[in-house]
């Protein structure tokens, strides 16, 4: 007897072999890219063709591990175009380097160059090559690793479990979660995620059917079990998970024990049919979404979610039609022990919200930037929406396109001579309250009123007791105000404006990179200087010196 299932396996085997064939060429390119990327990011090129008579000097130095201080052998050191390996004692010597200024960099597998080491990133050293070239002390930051095992409740290894590492990053003063690596466990249930920069990470094992191939296609009513998703440490969802802090060179062990839970099959039909396919996610009661396997027939819109664990879920469907219009549908379900059938999901176009700019002679689109940030930040790859002009006309009217249902903080920033007076949607004051978007009733257009009687603020720092650049952060009580940053060296001042008349706070920090400055809570431990600006006021403020490190987290 011939077994189509088995034949499929056999063909899959060929396919995976074929894939190897296809993928491998890219590797060579990748290696090339990494290399050229490093070379261009770190190294100045005033050394390209030394002219006749240029004096050449040797450059010597050491390479060491930034954590242990141990010398690093066989690191590749580059001074401009010139390179050498470090010897067993971590020392290197490069002869014949023409005099000049260079950036010095070292490289070795398993280590980051300090300019790429996440939150502790520091610039690469610049050296002056000449008669008195100092010895160059280079450090490399060891990579961090998360490894562990996934076992089931009877102690058996769970193979092919997907373990995902999510890094908590602060981008533009806001916390975001980004997927940083994924690994499938091997037949011993083991995984190992390498090449992590120092930082804070969530670790997750994704939901996995106990028997994927056999059970996904099994008849309705068949026993079907899943290992539910789990976060470190033993948490059912992201909200209750803890971030794992990784210092350079840390090797953290995160083991999971997952117990099978019976899942049910949920099926139904979407209207319209979504010929380009569909994505489904399960949203839990705290708004976290996880993608879930779906079987879908694009011709008639019939779908089946073969493995839905018990609980209260919002099933969310996303699709796109040929012109690129985005569709969305959702359905709340209570999953207990029996299959759910015949759900009707209406796919509706996602709302597009017009943005009107008023009260200004010049209403050019680019004079105002408007962005929506979802209020629920505990979501992987959180989606932000930016108001953009329609149809290729950069000064045309602005729209927020395909906005998914949810609550959003509206953040505006004005350029030129105007400042923002008010941001509203119908009767909602968006400088205080969120913009609520739902499918049935799209929100009123967002109206940004500009005014001309703006204030400006010049900030100076008193002479520094300690060297280095300081960053000044300007915030306001309104969540709609995008915090403004200015880096100040010794002496000069920074100019902020145009600013809407009102009350502002000024903070002074050595390094804003790891500071969640758009979140008032995160700034609570810092001492602000408050200033109230009147219409048309051009104020100057002088900030007192702050002890070094006072503002670091």
């Amino acid at each position, binding site marked *: 007897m*011939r*077994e189509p299932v088995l034949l499929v396996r056999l063909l899959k085997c060929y396919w995976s072999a074929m894939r190897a064939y296809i993928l491998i*060429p890219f590797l*060579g390119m990748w290696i090339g890219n990494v290399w050229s990327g490093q070379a261009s990011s770190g190294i100045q090129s005033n050394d390209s063709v030394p002219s006749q008579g240029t004096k050449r000097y040797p450059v010597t130095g050491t390479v060491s591990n930034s954590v242990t201080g141990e010398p690093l052998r066989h690191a590749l050191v580059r001074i401009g175009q010139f390179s050498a390996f470090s010897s067993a004692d971590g020392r290197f010597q*490069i002869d014949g380097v023409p005099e000049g200024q260079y950036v010095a960099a070292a490289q070795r597998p398993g280590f980051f160059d300090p300019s790429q080491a996440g939150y502790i990133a520091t610039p690469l050293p610049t050296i002056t090559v000449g008669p008195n070239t100092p010895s160059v002390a280079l450090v490399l930051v060891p990579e961090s690793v998360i490894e562990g095992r996934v076992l089931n409740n009877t102690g058996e290894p769970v193979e092919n479990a997907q373990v995902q590492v999510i890094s908590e990053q602060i981008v533009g003063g806001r916390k975001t979660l980004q997927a940083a690596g994924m690994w499938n466990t091997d037949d011993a249930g083991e995984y190992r995620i390498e090449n992590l920069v120092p930082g804070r990470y969530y670790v997750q094992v994704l939901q996995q059917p106990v028997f994927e191939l056999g059970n996904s296609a099994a008849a309705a009513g068949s026993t079907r079990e899943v290992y539910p998703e789990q976060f470190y440490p033993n948490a059912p969802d992201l909200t209750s998970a803890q971030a794992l802090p990784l210092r350079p060179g840390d090797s953290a062990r995160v083991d999971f024990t997952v117990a099978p839970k019976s899942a049910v099959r949920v099926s139904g039909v979407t209207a319209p049919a979504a010929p380009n396919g569909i994505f489904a996610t399960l949203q839990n009661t705290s708004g976290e979404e996880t993608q879930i396997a779906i079987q879908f027939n694009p011709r008639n819109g019939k779908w089946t979610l073969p493995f839905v664990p018990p609980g209260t879920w919002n099933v969310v469907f996303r699709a796109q039609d040929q012109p690129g219009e985005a569709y969305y549908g959702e359905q709340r379900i209570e999953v207990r022990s029996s299959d759910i059938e015949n759900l009707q999901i209406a796919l509706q176009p996602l709302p597009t919200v017009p943005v009107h700019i008023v009260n200004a002679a010049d209403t050019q689109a680019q004079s105002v930037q408007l962005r929506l940030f979802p209020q629920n930040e505990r979501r992987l790859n959180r989606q932000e929406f930016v108001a953009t002009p329609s149809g290729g006309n950069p000064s045309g009217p602005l729209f927020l396109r395909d906005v998914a249902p949810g609550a959003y903080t509206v953040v505006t920033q004005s350029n030129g001579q105007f400042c923002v007076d008010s941001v509203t949607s119908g009767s909602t004051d968006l400088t205080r309250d969120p913009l609520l978007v739902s499918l049935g009733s799209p929100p009123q257009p967002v109206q940004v009123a500009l005014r001309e009687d703006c204030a400006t603020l010049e900030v100076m720092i008193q002479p520094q007791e300690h060297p280095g650049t300081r960053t000044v952060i300007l915030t306001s009580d309104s969540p709609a105000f995008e915090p403004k940053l200015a880096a100040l060296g010794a002496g000069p001042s920074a100019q902020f404006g145009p600013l809407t008349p009102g009350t502002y706070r000024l903070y002074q920090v050595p390094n804003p990179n790891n500071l969640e400055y758009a979140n008032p809570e995160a700034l609570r431990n810092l001492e602000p200087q408050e200033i109230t600006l009147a219409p048309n006021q051009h104020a100057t403020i002088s900030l007192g010196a702050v002890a070094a490190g006072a503002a670091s987290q």
Partner: protein
Amino acid sequence: MSLGRQSPRLVLLLCALAALAFAFQATSAKFTVSGIVVEHATGRPLGGVLVILSPTSARDRRLTILTGADGRFAFTNLLAAKYSLLAQRRGEQEVHGYQGSEGFSTGVVAGPGLPSENLTFPLEAPASIAGTVIDEDGEQVRQANIVLLRKAVLLGRNQVSQMGNRVTGASGRFRFAHLPPGTYFIAVQAQPWYAQFAGPGAEGAQAAGSRELDVAYPVTYYGDTTNGAAAAPIPLVEGASITVQIALHAVPAIHVPILGTESSQGGLSASASVEGPGGVLLFSNAVTIGANNSYELTGLAPGRYIVQLSGEGQAGSRQTVELAAGSTLSAQNAVTISVNGRVAFEGMDHPPNGVTLLLSNGKRSFSARIEQDGSFSFSTNAPSPGRYEVYVSNAPEAYIRTVTANGAVVSGDTVEIEEGTSIQLSVVAAKGLRSKLDGIAVKDDKPVAAAMILLLPRDLNRKALIRRDQSDSDGTFTLPEIVPGRYTLLAIDDGRELAYQDPEMIKPYLSAGQLIDSPLGNDAPVKVNVVSRLRQ
């Protein structure tokens, strides 16, 4: 029996309804399929295994059950029918057929007086090969590409095929699990992490230290060799875990200018593969760099390569070359294979719509559209050298009667394509509906399960005509899609690893076979006597 390909999505949609109907019918049934899942080598019962049963007439009505700690399973209240019986271990992707191999298994027939209970379903203990890749300093090599090859009889051919690939992580380790027993080879391809390849014309301007970085690892096989033919076989038995280590040695990279590329305005790209064990092509690496119509192969260790050039006016030309320091490559020397010809469709006014000519050897296949005048040309996807069977596809009413060629040796429907040849194929296709053949394998008039059933054409070189099945628990079998003609029907008690596509291997069995003219005059099942496997 044979099933047509169906859209899996459609199938899934039907299955809820079908299962419901099936459940209703099942109330009047009284048969059972039951047994025990054991580990093949030890006979130890295996608990927690998913057993999947579906009627062969409706394979999407799947019933599933988990074996208990005693390894036992039982599907009760079944209708009398033929069932497909499969098993899957927890956490594994593989689904195993009952007494199965290579996509064939023994169907279990439930009915009055038929043995469908207390079956023993053995599963082979999974074996694994793990290893580490290190460099000459003994340091682990990351981002190394590992290809696992297995030498085995697959679909009746003795061949080496790729079983999987891995990329090493920081620890330089790789692991292949759930491997069937057999003979394996491992090939490794990597670049030194510090490698930096100088571009054309950069020779004189190379800065200090650069030469030290212009290095490459040759493709290296387990057994410490860079010669694919000398790769050391790794014998793997059921349940074994083998650990290997492979050391790479960097050598100065070669730079091979490609001459005669002045006309390549649109850019030229080249890839270089190596020939692994059994002639398998491995690692097609993009290896050109260049600009201003000056190109070279770079980042390669010296050695023998199959270089494929592509770009404007270079439709996939290929050459096999021994490359060393100082070698050059000529774009004009590149060898191309040209295959074209004509198919005459006997008894038809014109070729069926959408019909294509297919050249296939089980591992690779190439196809060309047959035009309305019967002509075809493999102009854009010329086959690589090798032996191929000729098929017409998308034409269920047509079958190939003869194949002849100018510029190539043809035996049966197999054409041998050599490097750099220009081949004119003449194919005669005739009209005739394909039929199926039902039969029963017997020994001393008793049905025999799990026998390999082969239908062999009189010309053993016409491999496209061979059909295969495995007899079910009641001895029955079905051979699908048989092209009209005279055949030998053969049943062999143990067909595992039998290279039946090789005429020399199968000839000794022919006298024990039964001559069949297809299509048969009637639908009565054919009885065939099971012969014992000859031990060569």
